[in-house]
């Protein structure tokens, strides 16, 4: 019994340490500049001094634009990568066609490459296409994921051939087979992959930082990195923390909505792999 209580106490301490930076962030976002200096977490004796002012001051920066840009880019990325990956993965898993072998090998080989090696070549290509400072430079290269197509291929190998055959006899086109049979079978994986794709693009920094030049086109990570370095926010950092809080909340909400799929999808894939 004492052992169980000790175990739980230990877990509570560890969990508190793990979420302490979150708690500190939430507190900092609502504090006045003076209280940022004087109180560690909250000014307990003067809770009435907590303020929404930091969020209001965000209006002075194009923060709203960055938020909208991030939502747009992450959504576009997710929709494209799931659609193209599941179509391609379906073809790789359930059809025989000319060139399938070489395509598979080349794609697998690129999986071994660190993506950063592409940056100079991609930059040059975008320069030639006149796509620098344009969202096309972010959306199109991001529309395919080799990891994603193999994830779908792997999952769709499990779609029973008899089911597809019955569908054909009933007069379904091949596209209907993809939509009505293959996608529903791999639904749990789609949930996990959707979240992962959204998260990746939401947090993506290096390529957008290289491509985007106009401040109003920035995404949240780029905008926030810029704010962090500004001397005016060195001590008066409540505004930066308010912005950070608002950047983290959407993905946490999304995670809660999809969490069952995510943890099971993540770990089932891991154990099989």
């Amino acid at each position, binding site marked *: 019994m004492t052992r169980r209580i000790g*175990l739980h106490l230990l*877990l509570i301490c*560890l*969990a508190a340490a*793990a*979420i302490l*930076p*979150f708690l*500190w962030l939430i507190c*900092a976002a609502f504090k006045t500049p003076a209280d940022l200096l004087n109180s*560690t977490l909250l000014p307990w004796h003067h809770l009435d001094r907590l303020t929404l002012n930091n969020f209001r001051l965000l209006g002075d920066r194009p923060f709203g634009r960055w938020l909208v840009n991030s939502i747009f880019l992450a959504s576009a990325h997710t929709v494209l990568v799931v659609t*193209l990956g599941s*179509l391609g993965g379906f*073809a790789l898993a359930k059809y025989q*066609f000319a060139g399938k072998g070489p395509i598979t090998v080349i*794609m697998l080989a*690129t999986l*071994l*490459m*660190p*993506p*950063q*090696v*592409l*940056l*100079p*070549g*991609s*930059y*040059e*290509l975008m*320069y030639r296409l006149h796509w620098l400072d344009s969202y096309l430079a972010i959306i*199109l*290269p991001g*529309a*395919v994921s*080799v990891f994603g197509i193999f994830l779908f291929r792997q999952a769709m190998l499990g779609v029973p051939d008899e089911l597809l055959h019955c569908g054909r006899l009933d007069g379904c*086109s*091949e*596209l209907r087979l993809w939509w009505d049979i293959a996608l529903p079978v791999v639904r749990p994986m789609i949930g996990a992959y959707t979240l992962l794709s959204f*998260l990746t693009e939401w*947090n993506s*920094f*290096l390529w957008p930082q*290289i491509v985007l030049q106009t401040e109003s086109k920035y995404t949240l*990570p780029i905008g926030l*990195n810029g704010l*962090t*370095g500004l001397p005016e926010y060195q001590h008066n950092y409540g505004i*930066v*923390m308010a912005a*950070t809080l608002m950047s*983290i909340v959407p993905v*946490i909400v999304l995670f809660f909505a999809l*969490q069952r799929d995510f943890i099971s999808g*993540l*770990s089932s894939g*891991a*154990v099989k*792999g």
Partner: protein
Amino acid sequence: MNRDRWWKFQSRAAPYLFVSPFLVIFCVFLLYPLARSLNLSFHKTFGPRHAVYTGWSNYRFLLGHDVLFGLAVMNTAFYTVAFVAIEIPLSLGLAVLLNSRGVRLRNLFRFSFFSSYLVGQVFVGVIFFQLFSPDGLVNQFISTILGHRIVIPWLSSPAMAMPSILIASLWLATGYGMVYFLAALQAVDPELYEAAQIDGAGGWDKFFHVTLPNIRPMLLYMVLIGTIGGFQLFELPFVLLQGAGPDGRGMTIVTYLFIMGFGAGDLGYASAIGWMLVAILLIVSLARFRFFSREIGA
């Protein structure tokens, strides 16, 4: 008849139509830039417009003369080894604790540990930039424990730059590793523990002789993704230290690639750095592969 021919056509063409959007984008925006990067690495360039062929000189300079590249490789390798050596025992330890019998609210604990993984590296950098400031939460905490005020220059002293990066990235990644280990632990056959119990094994015996051998594939997988991720480290130190850090102690290989390619404008040199990274990761994978196959042979 016409409808029949259409039907045959759509079933024959389907796989090509399905895979071609992916394939076209893959070739134009992945394969082509990859080939261009290889070609550029043999050039000296001034922005995207002017390039002069220089043969192997970029690579010769990188390997023979470039002190900053040496520093970047040392930093990155040190970070990777330290990160893997600390993260894996921590994640595994947490997973074992959470997997003990009779733990209540397991999902809540799991989410508390995992949640930091949802925060991207850039946002972690922004948060820890303040936590590590001279009067930040970390220094306040240490001062409280010691009983007197102490100011550790986490982000401005060369010696503390790497420990700061490690602490922030461990906060980010430990819970993520724990989720994987927890899944592996839950997949271990409980009968093995019962058998060990009957043979009189204690807690530590069970851990070393039942748990560890059974989660070995997961252990190796975590070492591999930890190593690959470690060598590609960029965002966290770049934001946390607002650049390469004091005396370049926060400079990683990718930071150096970014600075040379997009600060100094030499895309050719940046490409060469990128291909050195490819070579390093290839060596790491081969080394791991040899180690792994010897294990299977034994």
